[in-house]
């Protein structure tokens, strides 16, 4: 009961901070660039209408599927050792980089007992190398810049996964 109360208090704090930040930034934008903010909010509204239904379905499907994967299997493959972090680095490419689609899948693995090194490598890899994102790199950037970026960042998810294991393997990082 106390754990749930703590979780609710933390959520309220996050709501409060985000509401204050949103009010400050939107207020500043209305004061400095009123025409641009109206235009940007209109654009965002259409983006939200497009993404939200897919996101809701994604949350339900991803958390349900991951709940059906036996925890033992997740613990076996999604651990903090070198093999687990390597698997996460490769698997991150398959996780959508759109937060509302990818994060529910990652949350499911967290709840299934995946280690911190695995989750950090997975999330970092999906942010940098998601298969959803790679075509954008080549579409917007010139070929050489996209290739240099991918080559230079290739080992980073693996390194940050190992770093997370080393510095935080024993810290209580899971959401209450």
């Amino acid at each position: 009961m106390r754990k749930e109360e703590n979780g609710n208090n933390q959520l309220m704090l996050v709501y409060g901070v985000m509401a204050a930040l949103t009010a400050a930034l939107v207020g500043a934008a209305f004061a400095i660039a009123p025409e641009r903010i109206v235009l940007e909010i209109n654009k965002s509204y259409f983006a939200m209408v497009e993404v939200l239904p897919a996101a809701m379905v994604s949350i339900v499907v991803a958390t349900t599927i991951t709940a059906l994967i036996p925890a033992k299997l997740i613990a076996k493959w999604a651990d903090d050792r070198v093999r687990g972090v390597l698997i996460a680095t490769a698997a991150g490419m398959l996780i959508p980089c759109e937060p509302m689609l990818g994060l529910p899948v990652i949350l499911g693995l967290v709840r299934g007992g995946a280690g911190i090194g695995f989750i950090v490598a997975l999330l970092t890899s999906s942010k940098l190398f998601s298969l959803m994102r790679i075509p954008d790199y080549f579409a917007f950037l010139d070929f050489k810049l996209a290739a240099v970026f991918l080559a230079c960042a290739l080992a980073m998810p693996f390194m940050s996964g190992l770093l997370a294991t080393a510095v935080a393997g024993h810290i209580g990082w899971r959401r209450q």
Partner: protein
Amino acid sequence: MLDYKTLVAKEIKQSLRLTLQVLPLIVCGILISAAISALLPPGMVMKFGGSEAGVQGILIGGAIGMFVPGEPFLGLPIAAGLAKAGAGYGGLVAFISSWALFSVTLYPAEVAFLGWRFVLLRSLVNLFIPLLAGFIAYLIV
């Protein structure tokens, strides 16, 4: 014997609760993204980020990447513009890495799903990435 029907029903109920919890944060994230786009037009970012090269360019690229909204149609055209403005590869790679990993507009959803402790930890262990990736690009290109 595991009762899958009960398990799925429980998960769907929890998922719907989670959806309702994250919704206000997603709306905040979208409004923050709109406000930053209005306050920092791409031209201004390019003027600032395209002027430095070398190690200083890596630091500047890494810093400004965080303030550009996370949508690919905003961050990547800015990177392309910085390249045209003459930014070095080190700064460009630092900018793209920083934008992909730390864009402020992506944080509300991450906090909502994974909690602030994880997000703080993930951010700290990712801090080296824009600098190291940028430095490697600076050395090899």
